[in-house]
C-alpha cells in the first residue's frame, strides 16, 4: 500500500485584537474575530473561515470525484450557514451558561449538470464520504448539506 501519510502546518500570527495572519506553505490568509457579529468587520471570522473551508473541501472533492466518474458539470456552488449553541458565552456575558460550540451547520450544494439526478446523487454521496472536513464535522455537529441539482 502506498504511504500517503501527511501532516499540514499552519502558523498563525496575531496582528491585532481581531486580526490574524495565517501562513500555509507559501500562502497567506488573513482572518478577524473568532465569531464576528459586526457586518462591517474588515476581515472574515474564524467561524466563517471554517464554513469556507468546508465549502471549498466539498467543491474540490466533488469535482475530483466527478472527474474520475466522467460526470460532466458546468458549475458548482456551496452555501453554508451555522449557528452557535450560545454566542453570549463566547462574548463572556455574565450569567450565560452553555457552550459557544457550533450547534449546527446546514446549507446547499448546487450542481449544474446535464447528467441524471441519480448520477449526481451518487457522486454527492461519495463526496461526503471522501471529504476530510465533512467526515470530521459530521461526528460533532448537526451537519445537513442539501444537494440541489440545477439545469
Amino acid at each position: 500500500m502506498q504511504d500517503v501519510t501527511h501532516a499540514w502546518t499552519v502558523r498563525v500570527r496575531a496582528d491585532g485584537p481581531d486580526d490574524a495572519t495565517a501562513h500555509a506553505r507559501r500562502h497567506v490568509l488573513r482572518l478577524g474575530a473568532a465569531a464576528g457579529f459586526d457586518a462591517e468587520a474588515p476581515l472574515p471570522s474564524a467561524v466563517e473561515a471554517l464554513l469556507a473551508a468546508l465549502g471549498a473541501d466539498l467543491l474540490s472533492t466533488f469535482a475530483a470525484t466527478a472527474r474520475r466518474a466522467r460526470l460532466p458539470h458546468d458549475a458548482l456552488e456551496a452555501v453554508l450557514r451555522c449557528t452557535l449553541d450560545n454566542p453570549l458565552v463566547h462574548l463572556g456575558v455574565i450569567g450565560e451558561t452553555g457552550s459557544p460550540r457550533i450547534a449546527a451547520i446546514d446549507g446547499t450544494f448546487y450542481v449544474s449538470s446535464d447528467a441524471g439526478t441519480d448520477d449526481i446523487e451518487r457522486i454527492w454521496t461519495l463526496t461526503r464520504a471522501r471529504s476530510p472536513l465533512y467526515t470530521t464535522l459530521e461526528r460533532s455537529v448537526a451537519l445537513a448539506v442539501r444537494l440541489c441539482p440545477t439545469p
Partner: protein
Amino acid sequence: MPLPPLPPLPVTTVGSLPRSPELLRALKARRRGDLDRAGFDAVADAAVRDAVALQTAAGIDIVTDGEQRRDNFYSFVAEKLDGVRAMTLAEMLDHVEDKAGFERLLATLDVPAYAITNPTCVGPLARREPLAADELAFVRGLTDAPVKVPLPGPYLLTRAMWVPELTGRVYADKEALAEDVVALLRAEAEALAAGGAAVVQFDEPVLSELVFGRGQTRTFMCAALAARSDPEEELAFAVDLINRVAADLPVRTALHVCRGNWSRDERTLLSGGYAPLQPTFDALAVDELVLEYATPRAGAVVDPGAKALGLGVVNPRTDEIEAVDDIVARIRTALDVVPLDRLSINPDCGFGTFALRPMNDGARVDGKLRAMVAAARVVRDDPVG
C-alpha cells in the same frame, strides 16, 4: 399605434416560453464556447418553430418567438453589444457594493449565483448586431400572425449594466450610460417597426421594486446593483428614459411591469397593488400596460387612462390550469375599468424568463394558453355575462 386587424380581446403572451432540454444544452455549450453560432442557431431555430406552433395551435392572436434564443430576458444583450460582458452573479460578487444584500437575496430565492447572468457594462456601448430584429425576421418567416417582440427597458438595462467599479471607468455616471442605452434601444425599436413587428414590449419589472420594495425582500437581482436614491427620483429617471425610447415610435408599444418571476414561492415575490405606480403609468408615452392580475398580490385593476391594458389572467408559476370561468370573471371585472376595445389578455409574466429556471413545463403552458383563449372567446360573445 393601433394593432393590425384582430378580434377584440386579443390573447398574447408576455414573451418567454420554457426551453427544451436540447436547447438548454445548446445554450450552455454556447456559453462555454463549445458550440458556434451556426450550431446554436440550428437548435434555436427548431425551438422557435415549436414555440410558434404551440402558440398557433392554442389560438394565440399575437405570437412571440418564446425568447428561445435568450438566456434571460435582459442579459442576452451582452452577446449583441460591444462594451457589455455577461457576468454570472458569482463573478459579480467580487464587484457589487452591497455584498450582504446580494447574499440575502440569493439565500431567499434559493438560487446559486452561477445561475443568473447580468449584462455588465465594461466598455463603450456599441451595437454589434441587432438585439432582436433578426429574431423578428425569423418568426415572421414562420407565421402571418402579428408578432410581439419583448426588449429590456432602458431603466432596467441601465440599472443592471451599471456596476460602479467596472462601468465607472468608462462612463462618468449612470446617467451618461443611460444616454447610450436609450440611443441603442430607440434604434432597435425603429428597426423592429420597420421589420413589421406588431408590438414592441419593454420589460421594466424593477419599477415595482421601487414602490413595493421598501421593507420587503428584494426580488430582482438587478435591483440589488445600482445604489438606490430617492424612489421618486428613480421613477422620474425611469419615465424619462422610457419615453425617450418609446415616444412616437411607428409601432405599438407596451410596457410590462411585474413583481418578480424567479420563484414559485409566492412569499419571495413582491406584493401590492399598482396604485402607487399610477402617476408613473400616466406619464409614460406607451400604448399599452402589460400587468399581472392573476394573483391576489396584484390588487385591484388600475385605470390605464387612454392606454390599453394587457391583463394578466394566468399565473405562470403554478401547476393548476386556471378555470376558464375564473378567467372570464377576471376579464369582466377588468371591463368595469377598461373598455373591451382597449383590453388584451396575457399571462402574468413569462413562462421561462430565465432559461435555466423555467416556471412551468410545455404541457402546462399549453393548458394555460388554451384556457386564456377559451375565456377570451366567451367574453367576446358575451362581454357582460
